[in-house]
Protein backbone atom coordinates (compact mmCIF):
# COMPACT_ATOMS: atom_id res chain seq x y z
CA UNK A 1 0.00 0.00 0.00
CA UNK A 2 2.85 2.33 0.91
CA UNK A 3 4.45 1.50 -2.41
CA UNK A 4 1.21 2.38 -4.21
CA UNK A 5 0.94 5.76 -2.50
CA UNK A 6 4.58 6.38 -3.23
CA UNK A 7 3.97 5.68 -6.95
CA UNK A 8 0.87 7.87 -6.94
CA UNK A 9 2.80 10.66 -5.24
CA UNK A 10 5.61 10.28 -7.80
CA UNK A 11 3.17 10.39 -10.73
CA UNK A 12 1.26 13.38 -9.48
CA UNK A 13 4.47 15.24 -8.61
CA UNK A 14 5.31 15.47 -12.31
CA UNK A 15 3.97 18.45 -14.16
CA UNK A 16 3.33 16.38 -17.30
CA UNK A 17 0.61 14.51 -15.40
CA UNK A 18 -1.41 17.71 -15.29
CA UNK A 19 -1.11 18.41 -19.04
CA UNK A 20 -4.03 16.02 -19.59
CA UNK A 21 -6.20 17.62 -16.94
CA UNK A 22 -5.45 21.08 -18.32
CA UNK A 23 -6.23 20.11 -21.89
CA UNK A 24 -9.42 18.32 -20.90
CA UNK A 25 -10.60 21.42 -19.05
CA UNK A 26 -9.72 23.54 -22.09
CA UNK A 27 -11.48 21.20 -24.54
CA UNK A 28 -14.62 20.99 -22.42
CA UNK A 29 -14.85 24.75 -21.76
CA UNK A 30 -14.16 25.59 -25.43
CA UNK A 31 -16.70 23.03 -26.65
CA UNK A 32 -19.36 24.32 -24.27
CA UNK A 33 -18.73 27.98 -25.14
CA UNK A 34 -18.92 27.19 -28.87
CA UNK A 35 -22.07 25.13 -28.34
CA UNK A 36 -23.61 27.98 -26.37
CA UNK A 37 -22.82 30.43 -29.17
CA UNK A 38 -24.09 28.19 -31.96
CA UNK A 39 -26.92 26.53 -30.08
CA UNK A 40 -29.46 27.11 -32.85
CA UNK A 41 -27.29 25.54 -35.50
CA UNK A 42 -26.54 22.52 -33.30
CA UNK A 43 -30.21 22.08 -32.48
CA UNK A 44 -31.11 22.32 -36.13
CA UNK A 45 -28.54 19.71 -37.17
CA UNK A 46 -29.40 17.45 -34.29
CA UNK A 47 -33.17 17.49 -34.63
CA UNK A 48 -33.42 18.17 -38.38
CA UNK A 49 -35.28 15.03 -39.35
CA UNK A 50 -37.68 15.31 -36.40
CA UNK A 51 -38.31 19.07 -36.61
CA UNK A 52 -39.84 18.54 -40.02
CA UNK A 53 -42.68 16.55 -38.52
CA UNK A 54 -42.77 17.51 -34.84
CA UNK A 55 -43.02 20.71 -32.86
CA UNK A 56 -40.34 20.34 -30.21
CA UNK A 57 -40.45 22.31 -26.97
CA UNK A 58 -38.18 22.40 -23.95
CA UNK A 59 -34.50 22.56 -23.12
CA UNK A 60 -33.10 19.96 -25.52
CA UNK A 61 -29.59 21.38 -25.53
CA UNK A 62 -29.04 20.98 -21.80
CA UNK A 63 -26.07 20.11 -19.61
CA UNK A 64 -26.73 16.37 -19.80
CA UNK A 65 -26.86 16.43 -23.57
CA UNK A 66 -23.59 18.39 -23.72
CA UNK A 67 -21.98 15.85 -21.38
CA UNK A 68 -23.06 12.93 -23.56
CA UNK A 69 -21.95 14.83 -26.67
CA UNK A 70 -18.45 15.42 -25.26
CA UNK A 71 -18.24 11.82 -24.04
CA UNK A 72 -18.53 10.72 -27.64
CA UNK A 73 -15.04 12.05 -28.25
CA UNK A 74 -13.67 9.85 -25.46
CA UNK A 75 -12.23 7.26 -27.80
CA UNK A 76 -9.87 9.74 -29.46
CA UNK A 77 -8.47 12.30 -27.05
CA UNK A 78 -8.74 10.52 -23.70
CA UNK A 79 -6.61 7.53 -24.86
CA UNK A 80 -3.92 9.97 -25.92
CA UNK A 81 -3.91 11.67 -22.52
CA UNK A 82 -3.84 8.30 -20.78
CA UNK A 83 -0.82 7.13 -22.75
CA UNK A 84 1.10 10.26 -21.68
CA UNK A 85 1.33 8.82 -18.18
CA UNK A 86 0.70 5.10 -18.69
CA UNK A 87 3.29 4.87 -21.47
CA UNK A 88 5.84 6.58 -19.31
CA UNK A 89 5.33 5.03 -15.91
CA UNK A 90 7.75 2.09 -16.30
CA UNK A 91 9.91 3.20 -19.21
CA UNK A 92 10.76 6.50 -17.51
CA UNK A 93 12.65 4.55 -14.86
CA UNK A 94 14.90 3.20 -17.62
CA UNK A 95 15.21 6.60 -19.29
CA UNK A 96 16.08 8.30 -16.01
CA UNK A 97 18.44 5.48 -15.08
CA UNK A 98 16.60 4.73 -11.85
CA UNK A 99 15.42 1.24 -12.76
CA UNK A 100 18.41 -0.52 -11.17
CA UNK A 101 18.11 1.57 -8.03
CA UNK A 102 14.42 0.74 -7.86
CA UNK A 103 14.84 -2.98 -8.30
CA UNK A 104 17.58 -3.46 -5.75
CA UNK A 105 15.34 -2.06 -3.00
CA UNK A 106 13.50 -4.48 -0.68
CA UNK A 107 10.05 -4.48 -2.41
CA UNK A 108 9.79 -7.33 -4.90
CA UNK A 109 9.50 -6.72 -8.62
CA UNK A 110 5.94 -8.08 -8.49
CA UNK A 111 4.95 -5.50 -5.89
CA UNK A 112 6.62 -2.69 -7.81
CA UNK A 113 4.94 -3.54 -11.13
CA UNK A 114 1.58 -4.04 -9.40
CA UNK A 115 1.89 -0.67 -7.65
CA UNK A 116 2.78 1.00 -10.94
CA UNK A 117 -0.17 -0.66 -12.70
CA UNK A 118 -2.60 0.38 -9.97
CA UNK A 119 -1.22 3.92 -10.19
CA UNK A 120 -1.88 3.87 -13.94
CA UNK A 121 -5.46 2.75 -13.30
CA UNK A 122 -5.84 5.42 -10.59
CA UNK A 123 -4.65 8.09 -13.00
CA UNK A 124 -6.96 6.78 -15.75
CA UNK A 125 -9.96 6.78 -13.44
CA UNK A 126 -9.01 10.23 -12.16
CA UNK A 127 -8.83 11.61 -15.68
CA UNK A 128 -12.25 10.26 -16.70
CA UNK A 129 -13.83 11.35 -13.39
CA UNK A 130 -12.33 14.81 -13.92
CA UNK A 131 -13.86 14.88 -17.41
CA UNK A 132 -17.21 13.85 -15.91
CA UNK A 133 -17.12 16.49 -13.19
CA UNK A 134 -16.09 19.31 -15.50
CA UNK A 135 -18.60 18.31 -18.21
CA UNK A 136 -21.52 18.02 -15.83
CA UNK A 137 -20.64 21.10 -13.73
CA UNK A 138 -20.05 23.47 -16.65
CA UNK A 139 -22.81 21.83 -18.69
CA UNK A 140 -25.46 22.36 -16.02
CA UNK A 141 -24.11 25.83 -15.28
CA UNK A 142 -24.16 26.99 -18.92
CA UNK A 143 -27.13 25.05 -20.26
CA UNK A 144 -29.25 23.98 -17.27
CA UNK A 145 -30.84 20.58 -16.73
CA UNK A 146 -33.58 18.69 -18.49
CA UNK A 147 -34.44 15.41 -20.11
CA UNK A 148 -31.72 13.81 -22.20
CA UNK A 149 -32.28 13.21 -25.88
CA UNK A 150 -29.82 10.82 -27.44
CA UNK A 151 -29.78 11.05 -31.20
CA UNK A 152 -28.43 7.78 -32.58
CA UNK A 153 -28.11 9.22 -36.07
CA UNK A 154 -26.30 6.14 -37.36
CA UNK A 155 -29.39 4.11 -36.53
CA UNK A 156 -31.83 6.92 -37.40
CA UNK A 157 -33.48 6.90 -34.00
CA UNK A 158 -33.91 9.01 -30.92
CA UNK A 159 -33.97 7.89 -27.31
CA UNK A 160 -35.56 10.08 -24.68
CA UNK A 161 -34.37 9.69 -21.07
CA UNK A 162 -36.39 11.46 -18.34
CA UNK A 163 -34.38 13.91 -16.22
CA UNK A 164 -34.92 11.89 -13.04
CA UNK A 165 -33.07 8.93 -14.57
CA UNK A 166 -30.27 10.92 -16.20
CA UNK A 167 -27.82 11.44 -13.28
CA UNK A 168 -27.71 7.71 -12.52
CA UNK A 169 -27.38 6.82 -16.20
CA UNK A 170 -24.55 9.34 -16.64
CA UNK A 171 -22.82 7.96 -13.53
CA UNK A 172 -23.06 4.44 -14.93
CA UNK A 173 -21.87 5.65 -18.35
CA UNK A 174 -18.79 7.30 -16.84
CA UNK A 175 -18.07 4.21 -14.74
CA UNK A 176 -18.20 2.18 -17.95
CA UNK A 177 -15.98 4.79 -19.63
CA UNK A 178 -13.39 4.39 -16.87
CA UNK A 179 -13.52 0.63 -17.42
CA UNK A 180 -13.05 1.08 -21.21
CA UNK A 181 -10.13 3.42 -20.77
CA UNK A 182 -8.31 0.99 -18.47
CA UNK A 183 -7.71 -1.20 -21.53
CA UNK A 184 -5.90 1.66 -23.27
CA UNK A 185 -3.96 2.20 -20.05
CA UNK A 186 -3.08 -1.51 -19.93
CA UNK A 187 -1.77 -1.48 -23.50
CA UNK A 188 0.34 1.62 -22.84
CA UNK A 189 1.53 0.05 -19.59
CA UNK A 190 2.60 -3.14 -21.34
CA UNK A 191 4.45 -1.16 -24.03
CA UNK A 192 6.04 0.92 -21.30
CA UNK A 193 7.32 -2.25 -19.67
CA UNK A 194 8.81 -3.40 -22.99
CA UNK A 195 10.38 -0.08 -23.97
CA UNK A 196 13.17 2.00 -22.55
CA UNK A 197 11.79 5.35 -23.60
CA UNK A 198 8.36 6.98 -23.36
CA UNK A 199 7.76 8.00 -26.97
CA UNK A 200 7.50 4.42 -28.26
CA UNK A 201 4.74 3.31 -25.86
CA UNK A 202 2.74 6.53 -26.43
CA UNK A 203 2.90 6.32 -30.23
CA UNK A 204 2.50 2.52 -30.20
CA UNK A 205 -0.64 2.64 -28.06
CA UNK A 206 -2.21 5.40 -30.13
CA UNK A 207 -1.40 3.51 -33.32
CA UNK A 208 -3.12 0.39 -31.97
CA UNK A 209 -6.20 2.36 -30.84
CA UNK A 210 -6.55 4.29 -34.12
CA UNK A 211 -5.91 1.28 -36.40
CA UNK A 212 -8.37 -0.87 -34.43
CA UNK A 213 -10.99 1.89 -34.50
CA UNK A 214 -10.64 2.32 -38.26
CA UNK A 215 -10.66 -1.42 -38.99
CA UNK A 216 -13.63 -2.00 -36.72
CA UNK A 217 -15.70 0.63 -38.47
CA UNK A 218 -15.00 -0.09 -42.12
CA UNK A 219 -18.30 -0.96 -43.79
CA UNK A 220 -17.02 -4.09 -45.50
CA UNK A 221 -17.92 -7.66 -44.62
CA UNK A 222 -14.32 -8.68 -43.94
CA UNK A 223 -13.83 -5.91 -41.38
CA UNK A 224 -17.28 -6.52 -39.91
CA UNK A 225 -16.21 -10.13 -39.29
CA UNK A 226 -13.05 -8.82 -37.67
CA UNK A 227 -14.71 -6.30 -35.37
CA UNK A 228 -15.76 -8.75 -32.60
CA UNK A 229 -12.06 -9.50 -32.11
CA UNK A 230 -11.07 -5.86 -31.65
CA UNK A 231 -11.23 -4.41 -28.14
CA UNK A 232 -12.22 -1.01 -29.56
CA UNK A 233 -15.58 -2.51 -30.56
CA UNK A 234 -16.45 -2.93 -26.87
CA UNK A 235 -14.94 0.34 -25.68
CA UNK A 236 -18.08 2.34 -26.51
CA UNK A 237 -20.25 0.18 -24.26
CA UNK A 238 -20.77 3.19 -22.00
CA UNK A 239 -23.21 4.49 -24.64
CA UNK A 240 -25.52 1.56 -23.92
CA UNK A 241 -26.34 3.08 -20.53
CA UNK A 242 -27.96 5.93 -22.44
CA UNK A 243 -30.17 3.61 -24.48
CA UNK A 244 -33.69 2.37 -23.95
CA UNK A 245 -34.03 -0.32 -22.75
CA UNK A 246 -30.54 -0.70 -21.27
CA UNK A 247 -29.06 -3.82 -22.89
CA UNK A 248 -27.58 -5.31 -19.70
CA UNK A 249 -26.39 -8.52 -21.36
CA UNK A 250 -24.45 -6.62 -24.01
CA UNK A 251 -22.97 -4.37 -21.33
CA UNK A 252 -21.92 -7.33 -19.16
CA UNK A 253 -20.35 -9.05 -22.16
CA UNK A 254 -18.42 -5.94 -23.21
CA UNK A 255 -17.25 -5.28 -19.64
CA UNK A 256 -16.11 -8.89 -19.31
CA UNK A 257 -14.19 -8.85 -22.60
CA UNK A 258 -12.46 -5.59 -21.66
CA UNK A 259 -11.69 -7.01 -18.20
CA UNK A 260 -10.10 -10.09 -19.77
CA UNK A 261 -7.99 -7.78 -21.94
CA UNK A 262 -6.81 -6.00 -18.80
CA UNK A 263 -5.91 -9.26 -17.08
CA UNK A 264 -4.08 -10.54 -20.16
CA UNK A 265 -2.15 -7.34 -20.80
CA UNK A 266 -1.17 -6.89 -17.16
CA UNK A 267 -0.11 -10.55 -16.88
CA UNK A 268 2.25 -10.11 -19.85
CA UNK A 269 3.62 -6.87 -18.38
CA UNK A 270 4.03 -8.63 -15.03
CA UNK A 271 6.02 -11.51 -16.56
CA UNK A 272 8.12 -9.19 -18.74
CA UNK A 273 8.98 -6.95 -15.81
CA UNK A 274 9.84 -9.86 -13.56
CA UNK A 275 12.19 -11.25 -16.21
CA UNK A 276 13.69 -7.89 -17.13
CA UNK A 277 17.45 -7.95 -17.41
CA UNK A 278 18.79 -4.83 -15.73
CA UNK A 279 22.43 -5.87 -15.74
CA UNK A 280 23.21 -4.89 -19.30
Amino acid sequence: MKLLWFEIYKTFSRWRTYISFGFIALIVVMTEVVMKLSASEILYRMMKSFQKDFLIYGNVLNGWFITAFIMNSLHIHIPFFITLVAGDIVSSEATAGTVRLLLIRPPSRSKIITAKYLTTLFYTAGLVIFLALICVTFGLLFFGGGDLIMNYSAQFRIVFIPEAEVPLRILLAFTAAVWSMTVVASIAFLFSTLAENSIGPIIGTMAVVIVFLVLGNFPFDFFRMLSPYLFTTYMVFWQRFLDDPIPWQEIARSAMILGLHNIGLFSIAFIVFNRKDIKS
Partner: protein
Amino acid sequence: MRKLLLFAGILLLLLPSTGWTQAQEDASRYLDPIEKKYSGLKDYTADVNVHFDIEALKAPDMQARLYFKAPDKMKVESKRIFFLPKEGGYFNPSLFKKKDFDVKLLERLVYDERKAVRLKLTPTDTDAYHKAFLLTIDIDRSLIREIKISPSEGREVNAMIEYGLFSNFELPTHIHLQIDMPTDEPSGMREFTQFGQKPKKIAGKVEITYSNYRVNVGLSDEIFKDSDPLKPK
Protein backbone atom coordinates in the same frame (compact mmCIF):
# COMPACT_ATOMS: atom_id res chain seq x y z
CA MET B 1 -83.99 -10.58 -72.21
CA ARG B 2 -85.07 -7.28 -73.77
CA LYS B 3 -86.08 -6.00 -70.33
CA LEU B 4 -82.74 -7.04 -68.92
CA LEU B 5 -80.87 -5.19 -71.67
CA LEU B 6 -83.01 -2.12 -71.12
CA PHE B 7 -82.30 -2.22 -67.38
CA ALA B 8 -78.56 -2.59 -68.02
CA GLY B 9 -78.68 0.32 -70.45
CA ILE B 10 -80.44 2.57 -67.97
CA LEU B 11 -77.95 1.54 -65.27
CA LEU B 12 -75.02 2.34 -67.56
CA LEU B 13 -76.50 5.75 -68.30
CA LEU B 14 -77.18 6.45 -64.64
CA LEU B 15 -73.80 5.47 -63.18
CA PRO B 16 -71.62 8.08 -64.88
CA SER B 17 -74.30 10.72 -64.48
CA THR B 18 -74.35 10.14 -60.69
CA GLY B 19 -70.56 10.49 -60.58
CA TRP B 20 -70.73 13.53 -62.82
CA THR B 21 -73.31 15.11 -60.53
CA GLN B 22 -71.10 14.43 -57.50
CA ALA B 23 -68.03 15.85 -59.14
CA GLN B 24 -69.92 18.96 -60.10
CA GLU B 25 -71.42 19.46 -56.64
CA ASP B 26 -69.96 22.35 -54.70
CA ALA B 27 -68.20 20.20 -52.16
CA SER B 28 -66.85 23.20 -50.29
CA ARG B 29 -70.32 23.66 -48.78
CA TYR B 30 -69.47 20.84 -46.36
CA LEU B 31 -66.86 23.10 -44.78
CA ASP B 32 -69.34 25.92 -44.11
CA PRO B 33 -71.12 24.34 -41.13
CA ILE B 34 -67.80 23.60 -39.49
CA GLU B 35 -66.62 27.17 -39.95
CA LYS B 36 -69.96 28.39 -38.58
CA LYS B 37 -69.95 25.94 -35.69
CA TYR B 38 -66.59 27.11 -34.40
CA SER B 39 -66.93 30.79 -35.24
CA GLY B 40 -67.62 31.48 -31.56
CA LEU B 41 -64.49 29.67 -30.44
CA LYS B 42 -62.04 32.45 -29.62
CA ASP B 43 -59.51 30.51 -27.58
CA TYR B 44 -59.00 27.43 -25.48
CA THR B 45 -56.45 25.84 -23.17
CA ALA B 46 -56.12 22.13 -22.52
CA ASP B 47 -53.84 19.58 -20.92
CA VAL B 48 -52.19 17.33 -23.49
CA ASN B 49 -50.76 13.87 -23.02
CA VAL B 50 -48.80 12.36 -25.90
CA HIS B 51 -48.05 8.67 -26.06
CA PHE B 52 -45.61 7.49 -28.71
CA ASP B 53 -45.52 4.05 -30.21
CA ILE B 54 -42.75 4.69 -32.72
CA GLU B 55 -39.65 2.54 -33.05
CA ALA B 56 -37.43 5.45 -34.06
CA LEU B 57 -38.58 7.58 -31.13
CA LYS B 58 -38.28 5.89 -27.76
CA ALA B 59 -39.95 8.26 -25.37
CA PRO B 60 -42.14 8.08 -22.29
CA ASP B 61 -45.53 9.82 -22.28
CA MET B 62 -45.17 13.58 -22.48
CA GLN B 63 -47.46 16.12 -20.83
CA ALA B 64 -47.96 19.80 -21.51
CA ARG B 65 -50.51 22.60 -21.40
CA LEU B 66 -51.65 23.84 -24.80
CA TYR B 67 -52.92 27.36 -25.45
CA PHE B 68 -54.79 28.20 -28.64
CA LYS B 69 -56.16 31.50 -29.83
CA ALA B 70 -58.07 31.90 -33.06
CA PRO B 71 -57.21 32.10 -35.83
CA ASP B 72 -53.79 30.46 -35.56
CA LYS B 73 -51.89 31.30 -32.37
CA MET B 74 -50.64 28.29 -30.48
CA LYS B 75 -48.36 27.82 -27.52
CA VAL B 76 -47.21 24.80 -25.58
CA GLU B 77 -46.09 25.12 -21.98
CA SER B 78 -44.07 22.26 -20.61
CA LYS B 79 -41.42 22.01 -17.92
CA ARG B 80 -39.91 19.11 -19.80
CA ILE B 81 -39.08 18.31 -23.40
CA PHE B 82 -42.26 17.91 -25.40
CA PHE B 83 -42.83 16.59 -28.93
CA LEU B 84 -46.11 17.32 -30.71
CA PRO B 85 -46.77 16.09 -34.24
CA LYS B 86 -47.00 19.07 -36.57
CA GLU B 87 -49.75 17.60 -38.66
CA GLY B 88 -52.91 16.55 -36.89
CA GLY B 89 -51.39 17.06 -33.46
CA TYR B 90 -53.75 19.80 -32.30
CA PHE B 91 -57.13 21.17 -33.20
CA ASN B 92 -57.43 24.37 -35.18
CA PRO B 93 -60.97 24.76 -36.56
CA SER B 94 -59.95 27.48 -38.95
CA LEU B 95 -57.27 25.38 -40.62
CA PHE B 96 -59.54 24.26 -43.43
CA LYS B 97 -61.06 27.44 -44.79
CA LYS B 98 -62.77 26.90 -48.09
CA LYS B 99 -61.15 29.97 -49.64
CA ASP B 100 -57.74 28.29 -49.26
CA PHE B 101 -58.61 25.04 -51.03
CA ASP B 102 -60.14 23.50 -54.08
CA VAL B 103 -62.58 21.07 -52.57
CA LYS B 104 -63.66 17.89 -54.28
CA LEU B 105 -66.16 15.37 -53.01
CA LEU B 106 -64.66 11.89 -53.16
CA GLU B 107 -67.42 9.81 -51.63
CA ARG B 108 -70.37 9.68 -49.29
CA LEU B 109 -70.05 7.11 -46.56
CA VAL B 110 -71.22 6.01 -43.14
CA TYR B 111 -68.63 6.77 -40.49
CA ASP B 112 -69.22 5.63 -36.93
CA GLU B 113 -72.84 4.96 -37.85
CA ARG B 114 -73.34 8.52 -39.06
CA LYS B 115 -73.61 10.12 -42.45
CA ALA B 116 -70.27 11.38 -43.66
CA VAL B 117 -68.45 12.65 -46.71
CA ARG B 118 -64.87 12.31 -47.79
CA LEU B 119 -63.37 15.43 -49.34
CA LYS B 120 -60.11 16.13 -51.06
CA LEU B 121 -58.73 19.58 -50.32
CA THR B 122 -56.08 20.79 -52.72
CA PRO B 123 -54.42 24.03 -51.64
CA THR B 124 -54.91 27.01 -53.92
CA ASP B 125 -51.96 28.80 -52.34
CA THR B 126 -49.10 26.32 -52.56
CA ASP B 127 -46.82 28.64 -50.59
CA ALA B 128 -49.00 28.33 -47.51
CA TYR B 129 -49.81 24.63 -47.86
CA HIS B 130 -47.63 22.09 -49.60
CA LYS B 131 -49.92 19.12 -49.75
CA ALA B 132 -53.47 18.02 -50.25
CA PHE B 133 -55.69 16.80 -47.42
CA LEU B 134 -58.34 14.13 -47.36
CA LEU B 135 -61.01 14.94 -44.79
CA THR B 136 -63.77 12.72 -43.52
CA ILE B 137 -66.55 14.91 -42.20
CA ASP B 138 -69.47 13.78 -40.06
CA ILE B 139 -72.16 15.87 -41.75
CA ASP B 140 -74.75 15.28 -39.02
CA ARG B 141 -72.55 16.81 -36.33
CA SER B 142 -70.34 18.96 -38.60
CA LEU B 143 -67.17 17.41 -37.26
CA ILE B 144 -63.91 16.53 -38.96
CA ARG B 145 -63.43 12.90 -37.97
CA GLU B 146 -60.42 12.02 -40.06
CA ILE B 147 -57.60 14.03 -41.58
CA LYS B 148 -55.37 12.25 -44.00
CA ILE B 149 -52.45 13.92 -45.64
CA SER B 150 -52.37 12.93 -49.24
CA PRO B 151 -49.23 10.78 -49.65
CA SER B 152 -46.37 12.85 -50.99
CA GLU B 153 -42.61 12.27 -50.89
CA GLY B 154 -43.24 9.01 -49.06
CA ARG B 155 -44.98 10.81 -46.17
CA GLU B 156 -48.30 9.66 -44.84
CA VAL B 157 -50.22 10.98 -41.84
CA ASN B 158 -53.65 9.87 -40.78
CA ALA B 159 -55.42 11.46 -37.82
CA MET B 160 -58.62 10.06 -36.34
CA ILE B 161 -60.36 12.44 -33.96
CA GLU B 162 -62.81 11.81 -31.12
CA TYR B 163 -64.71 14.70 -29.58
CA GLY B 164 -66.23 15.72 -26.29
CA LEU B 165 -68.49 18.64 -25.42
CA PHE B 166 -66.86 21.54 -23.57
CA SER B 167 -68.72 24.83 -23.02
CA ASN B 168 -70.99 24.09 -25.98
CA PHE B 169 -68.07 23.35 -28.28
CA GLU B 170 -67.17 19.90 -29.48
CA LEU B 171 -63.40 19.68 -29.05
CA PRO B 172 -61.02 16.74 -29.47
CA THR B 173 -60.51 14.45 -26.51
CA HIS B 174 -58.44 11.94 -28.37
CA ILE B 175 -56.42 12.08 -31.58
CA HIS B 176 -55.10 8.83 -32.90
CA LEU B 177 -52.28 9.50 -35.34
CA GLN B 178 -50.82 6.98 -37.71
CA ILE B 179 -47.60 8.32 -39.19
CA ASP B 180 -45.17 7.07 -41.77
CA MET B 181 -42.48 9.60 -42.62
CA PRO B 182 -39.09 9.16 -44.20
CA THR B 183 -36.11 10.55 -42.27
CA ASP B 184 -33.63 12.88 -43.91
CA GLU B 185 -30.21 11.73 -44.97
CA PRO B 186 -27.75 12.72 -42.23
CA SER B 187 -26.19 16.04 -43.15
CA GLY B 188 -22.45 16.51 -43.51
CA MET B 189 -19.99 13.64 -43.37
CA ARG B 190 -21.50 10.26 -42.78
CA GLU B 191 -20.28 8.04 -40.02
CA PHE B 192 -18.58 4.82 -41.05
CA THR B 193 -21.50 2.75 -39.85
CA GLN B 194 -23.98 4.77 -41.92
CA PHE B 195 -22.55 3.71 -45.25
CA GLY B 196 -24.75 1.28 -47.10
CA GLN B 197 -27.67 1.99 -44.77
CA LYS B 198 -30.95 3.34 -46.03
CA PRO B 199 -32.52 5.98 -43.80
CA LYS B 200 -35.26 4.40 -41.73
CA LYS B 201 -38.79 5.74 -41.54
CA ILE B 202 -40.39 7.39 -38.58
CA ALA B 203 -43.40 5.16 -38.57
CA GLY B 204 -45.89 4.23 -35.88
CA LYS B 205 -48.74 5.50 -33.78
CA VAL B 206 -49.14 8.57 -31.62
CA GLU B 207 -52.04 8.84 -29.17
CA ILE B 208 -52.83 12.39 -28.12
CA THR B 209 -55.26 12.92 -25.28
CA TYR B 210 -56.73 16.32 -24.42
CA SER B 211 -58.36 17.09 -21.08
CA ASN B 212 -59.20 19.97 -18.70
CA TYR B 213 -60.44 22.25 -21.46
CA ARG B 214 -61.08 25.88 -20.65
CA VAL B 215 -62.86 27.60 -23.49
CA ASN B 216 -63.08 31.31 -24.33
CA VAL B 217 -61.22 32.49 -21.26
CA GLY B 218 -59.91 35.57 -23.06
CA LEU B 219 -56.29 34.64 -23.61
CA SER B 220 -54.20 37.71 -24.30
CA ASP B 221 -51.71 37.92 -27.15
CA GLU B 222 -48.95 38.36 -24.57
CA ILE B 223 -49.17 34.66 -23.71
CA PHE B 224 -48.15 33.75 -27.23
CA LYS B 225 -44.94 35.76 -27.19
CA ASP B 226 -41.89 33.48 -27.12
CA SER B 227 -44.10 30.60 -28.11
CA ASP B 228 -41.81 29.29 -30.81
CA PRO B 229 -40.62 25.72 -30.57
CA LEU B 230 -36.96 24.94 -31.37
CA LYS B 231 -36.07 27.02 -34.35
CA PRO B 232 -32.88 27.26 -36.34
CA LYS B 233 -31.49 30.73 -37.02
